[in-house]
């Protein structure tokens, strides 16, 4: 009976245990998607293969709709190139489709072949899993998920769906069967909003135009950190201020919507793309943030973080990574969602906390507090990159800091409120570390304890390690306020952790040096799906099928 040795059984049990733990987070959780009928600005891209009239046509394509106007672009062999032919139309005038040929006979042939078998206007519905007319016969496979549509002589089968921004699920694999004709669409990715307008739905152009950009000038650092240790004057960010900054970025500064804010040549992708500095610095950045009493009060009184600290960390990094690596519509979606979350966070400080009086008003959408949250991210990234990878030149730091200003503007912070360059930015950070604005309150202590508390037995060692790393890297005054030790025991452990990290870094395959979201963004730039181990990491950590693809 003893087929397996004792050691083999122990090993098998261990593997099964790991598999059970792992399987709980292997794939994105299921959810009820929003109806794709609510999309008015959207696009999908992929490849098509049409067989009809004895002819076979293949091409990459994108389908884009802005309100009632749509365009189906034939791209040829290149998944991300410029359109070679475009079918244009209006959903309310299905008979008036036109073809605009830009680049060649082959593309024109594909477009005409497609036009001979269906209206692109009908495709604008089918491609989202919707019926084009009320005469369609629909079979559902779940709420807002079609399984089969029979309409206009086609039997349309939806084999796979992809989760995309905004709680939508759109078809990823569609087969059209008709009499002596069939079409297959393999959809790679989609955008679900913010294609033409970066702001939400509540403001008119006049209201945005009427909001005034604050004038610059003066000593920015001393405005943010007054010499006498008092609190800075609050500067609230309303929706018009927020939208004005978004429009500046959307309309003027960035020509390529697919690339997003930064792109592979940026310092931002170079520094934040490395897996180890980011993971080693996460605790430092979070504890520096919650050393600010306004930030702590906002989290403590309005967030579910007390029950789910890792969930809060996951949501925070989800938005940071979406803004850093997302396409422009994904960036704008994330910025708007963060603003919506922040809008409800306001209150009065429950106790005197360093520079801030008891009862003083706080809001999440406030310039001083938001600049501090941003500063913790960028200062920590540079600090950890230089510690773990290589030193940066002054020029590189200045370039990186210029890039971070775009990120700040996405949260409504005017450029004039920010330190001018890297040196002034570091002067601001040092002034804050010494300022009573950073005061670890009892609520901040609770958050710190929650953050490092292992949620399961599997997390005991990682959390213990993260606490030691954070203790080592925090500015000493803040570390002391958090009552974190950094004696010989912690120094010794941090020493072997860094050595271990360095060894792992040396052993890792080159493509694993960079974090999964970086690879996902690179796949988007090439018009591909992610897949593989990086897809697994994204679903396992973020519980999302995709962040920036």
């Amino acid at each position: 009976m003893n087929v397996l040795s004792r050691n083999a059984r122990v090993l098998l049990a261990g593997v099964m245990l790991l598999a059970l733990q792992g399987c709980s987070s292997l794939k994105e959780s299921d959810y009820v998607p929003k109806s794709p009928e609510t999309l008015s600005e959207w696009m999908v891209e992929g490849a098509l293969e049409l067989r009809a009239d004895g002819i076979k046509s293949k091409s990459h394509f994108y389908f884009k709709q802005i309100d009632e106007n749509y365009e189906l672009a034939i791209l040829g062999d290149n998944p991300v190139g410029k359109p070679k032919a475009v079918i244009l139309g209006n959903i309310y005038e299905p008979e008036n489709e036109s073809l605009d040929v830009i680049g060649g006979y082959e593309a024109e042939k594909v477009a005409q072949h497609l036009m001979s078998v269906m209206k692109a206007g009908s495709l604008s519905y089918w491609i989202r899993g919707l019926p084009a007319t009320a005469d369609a016969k629909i079979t559902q496979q779940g709420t807002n998920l079609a399984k089969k549509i029979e309409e206009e002589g086609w039997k349309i089968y939806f084999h796979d769906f992809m989760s995309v921004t905004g709680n939508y699920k759109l078809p990823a694999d569609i087969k059209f069967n008709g009499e002596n004709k069939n079409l297959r669409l393999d959809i790679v990715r989609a955008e679900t909003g913010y294609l033409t307008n970066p702001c939400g739905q509540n403001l008119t152009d006049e209201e945005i135009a009427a909001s005034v950009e604050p004038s610059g000038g003066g000593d920015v650092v001393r405005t943010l950190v007054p010499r006498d240790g008092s609190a800075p004057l609050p500067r609230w960010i309303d929706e018009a201020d927020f939208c004005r900054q978004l429009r500046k970025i959307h309309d003027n500064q960035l020509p390529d919507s697919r690339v997003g804010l930064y792109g592979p040549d940026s310092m931002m992708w170079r520094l934040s793309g490395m897996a180890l500095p980011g993971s080693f610095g996460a605790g430092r950045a979070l504890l520096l943030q919650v050393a600010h009493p306004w930030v702590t009060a906002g989290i403590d009184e309005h967030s579910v973080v007390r029950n789910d600290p890792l969930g809060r960390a996951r949501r925070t990094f989800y938005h940071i990574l979406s803004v850093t690596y997302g396409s422009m519509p994904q960036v704008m979606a994330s910025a708007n969602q963060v603003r919506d979350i922040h809008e409800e966070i306001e209150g009065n400080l429950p106790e005197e906390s360093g520079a801030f009086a008891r009862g003083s008003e706080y809001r999440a959408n406030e310039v001083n507090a938001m600049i501090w949250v941003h500063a913790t991210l960028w200062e920590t990234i540079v600090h950890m990159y230089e510690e773990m990878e290589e030193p940066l030149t002054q020029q590189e730091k200045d370039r990186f800091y210029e890039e971070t200003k775009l990120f700040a503007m996405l949260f409504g912070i005017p450029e004039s409120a920010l330190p001018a360059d890297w040196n002034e930015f570091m002067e601001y950070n040092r002034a804050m570390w010494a300022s009573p604005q950073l005061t670890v309150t009892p609520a901040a202590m609770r958050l710190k304890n929650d953050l490092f508390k292992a949620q399961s037995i599997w997390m005991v060692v990682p959390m213990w390690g993260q606490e030691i790393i954070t203790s080592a890297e925090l500015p000493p005054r803040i570390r002391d306020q958090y009552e974190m030790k950094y004696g010989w025991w912690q120094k010794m452990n941090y020493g072997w952790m860094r050595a271990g990290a360095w060894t792992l870094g040396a052993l890792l395959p080159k493509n694993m040096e960079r974090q999964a979201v970086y690879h996902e963004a690179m796949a988007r730039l090439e018009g591909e799906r992610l897949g593989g181990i990086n897809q697994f990491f994204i679903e396992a950590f973020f519980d999302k099928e995709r962040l920036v693809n």
Partner: protein
Amino acid sequence: MRGIRRWATMCRLSMWILMLIAFPAGAAYDETEYLKSEAFLAKVYGENVPSISLMPLRGDTRKRAEAALGHRYSGLRLRYWLQNGTSAWIIDEKSKDMPMTIGIGINPEGEIAVIELLVYREPRGGEIHQAAFRKQYLGLRLTGNNALSGPVDGITGATLSVDALNRVAAMALVLHQSVQGETIP
């Protein structure tokens, strides 16, 4: 040489396992599905649910619907169900930063007959699904300024969700009038 390679392989394997176990389990979606759309339609129509109708949201109907909603509606058309003067609508509307899905049935007299929260996607504010709260909407009609004909008592901690439900209820009443060909009272 073989020893070093074996050690490197072991290191890699250990790292994979460490990464696997370090990932936090648990869903990223705070979502509760209170009622499936089929069950909502059965509440409105019983066993004989009509087939889907489609309404392009354009012109005056769009203006009135958006006035009731308080902002631009992002879709271009709406799916609805209509039988013997009773209409049913399933509408998504943002409560805080995520959409909730609401089902509303309106009788031939233009009064709310059924109102259900189908899906709620926020961690807080889902109390609006409680029957005692939703009961306040039954019998409400549309006023001349595209508002509800009676007051609805709010719920502490669910202000945004209550506001969103009020707006969607008013919008559904506007849409009902539109499919019935009614004019503003």
